[in-house]
């Protein structure tokens, strides 16, 4: 059974170059993109096209290995403006839309900062979304102490953890073979776009 260990994941991401770290965070965001798009109709501040556009721009930066800080900051501001927060009127799926854009913001942070922690948080947002979804979907109650039952064994969460590990393995392989990085990035992007439709099972 796989569990989300931020320290272990950070140790896996640290050896990767910036390009591949951003690719990992963008793949985690790509799989959550539909969580934002599908709730945009009820989101008073929702703009799915803008989110698609800035995510596509990030993938282009990764594929071309060109990170323009100004453009990234601009897109990050747009992302933060669209992120539902405590000031936003509540709407169905708000928690999932928020996590999707938080993950996107961490992907931009990964591209801006020379740190692997932001990529870990991007992956953590995806796992937390699945954890929250499973709790709401199956009405899992907490015990009298308020502690949540163990949810790590839920299949959709295990599937996401497996995908993250598969991405990291391929990225490590690409890191060892720099000439193959572009092909690996394209393959991870396509796979993330495909897995987005089955993110919640």
């Amino acid at each position, binding site marked *: 059974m796989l569990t989300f260990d931020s320290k272990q994941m950070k140790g896996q991401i640290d050896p990767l170059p910036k390009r591949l770290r951003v690719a990992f965070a963008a793949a985690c965001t790509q799989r959550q993109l539909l969580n934002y798009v599908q709730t945009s109709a009820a989101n008073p501040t929702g703009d799915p096209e803008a989110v698609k556009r800035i995510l596509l721009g990030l993938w282009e930066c990764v594929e071309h290995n060109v990170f323009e800080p100004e453009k990234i900051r601009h897109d990050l501001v747009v992302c933060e403006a669209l992120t539902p927060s405590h000031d936003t009127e509540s709407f169905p799926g708000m928690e999932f839309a928020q996590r999707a854009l*938080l993950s996107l913001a961490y992907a931009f942070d990964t591209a801006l900062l020379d740190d692997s922690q932001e990529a870990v948080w991007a992956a953590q947002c995806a796992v937390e979304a699945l954890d929250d979804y499973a709790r709401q979907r199956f009405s899992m109650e907490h015990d009298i102490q308020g502690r*949540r039952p163990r949810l790590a064994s839920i299949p959709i969460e295990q599937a996401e953890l497996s995908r993250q590990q598969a991405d990291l393995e391929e990225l490590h392989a690409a890191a060892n073979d720099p000439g193959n990085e572009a092909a690996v990035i394209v393959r991870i992007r396509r796979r993330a776009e495909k897995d987005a439709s089955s993110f919640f099972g």
Partner: protein
Amino acid sequence: MPSIFDLMPASLWPVQPFRLPQDPARSSAWPSVASGWTPAVPAPPPGWPTASADSPAEADASVSAWDRAMRQALAAQSSATGDRGLGALTSDQILANAKRAHDFVTWVLGPPSASQALPLGDALMRGASHDVGAAPADGVAANANAPLPYISAPGEEANPPSLAPADTDQQPDVSAAIGSPNIERQGVRARAIAAMRPPPPPAIADIGPEIYRAGADAIHSINAGLNPFSAEALAGIAAEVKTATPTDALARYWENEKRVGRGLLGIPQLAAAPLTGISRSLGGHALQWFDANVMRKLAVKMFGEDKVRQIEQARGSPGGLSYEDAKHAVDQIMMGLGPRGGMPRARLAPTTRALPPPPIGPRSVEIAEPPYVDPATVPLVPADPPDFDSALAAARRRGIDPDALSARAKEIHSVLHPRAQTARTTAVLSTDGPTIIGGGKVDLEKGQLRLLRDGEIHSELPRADAEPTVLTKAMVLRHRPLALATSRPICSSCENFIKSMGGVISPSRTIAIFPGSF
């Protein structure tokens, strides 16, 4: 010395009016067609005396042929004894009483069934005349002498056996009456088979006689109690004539009432006669067997044979319980098994309760007029809530530390990753029960839940702010809120919600105190 009843007019005596009893010997007194009640008297049962064609006609034409035959038979019997005059009168009375009893039973139970068992079975059923009154009681038709096929018993040889019991010579000479050797031979054979067959146990064999006795007792009770011309009723009337004192009259009246009651009780007894007979036979024999084979042996084993015999002799029941005593015990047991509490009471119809009209009409929000309040003495303006400082002081006097709550909220909130901390809120609510912790917009994450300690519970309310999330949990658990701390300033909508619950919000808008709960 004259008694008080000699001085009192006879009309004031506490007795029932006396009516002279009708002469039972006078057949004209018997209910006739003119009275509207004609007992249907069918053909007399077989074996009863019937009127012969050559009997002389009676002078009284109202006497039926059946009566005449009975009278002739009784007169002949009395003439044999010598005193014809007295015998005729007695026979007339006996005959009239018997006829009334028969007619009354016929009136109660209906005419006897036409399919009464005839004594001769097949031979008669094959073409003999059914007019028993015109034939000898034990006779059969002359044309019944056709040879009947021999019916062999299973396992028996084809040759008809000439089995006959040892007392065959005591059997009536059937061949002389029937004239058919086949019938005679079959009769002999049937009796032989019956003699060889083991008799049924007495508990089974006595069922029929017991049913008969129970039914006969019931019919007797009905006749004695409900037939006004029964011997018991006439004896009661005769005794009533002889009453000289009111006490005697009252006693006679009570006796008559009891007799009528017994007659009424005889009707259900008659209906239950089969059950009574079966229970008497089965239960009586079973009880007798149990007493003789179990209880007596047990008593002998405990006290010795001599002692038991002494007790039995003193009780008058040597050898144990007799069958009659056992039957009596069974009757008492059966009476004890009856239902208690009388007839079940019929259900009462639901009663409609008259309720007072409500103070509010249907679909109306108008309430009855409120009580009068003098504004000069009672201010209608609600009291101002206490300021935050006084509420904070009161909370600290109660041992509530809002600063510790605030620190706890920040501690749990800090587990979130930085961007989640910016987008979410964490609230900690102190109550008179557990401390409730919840998140705003997004419920607490796994990392936050791991920080919960004993006495702290988690609250979930998806997409709601943190303040309503924890306050709703407190209301659901019926705990009173004491103080609330949040990780970020309370929004305006949450402020209204907190104030509606009596809370006071700090100037920093991160703490709320509920002084009304202290």
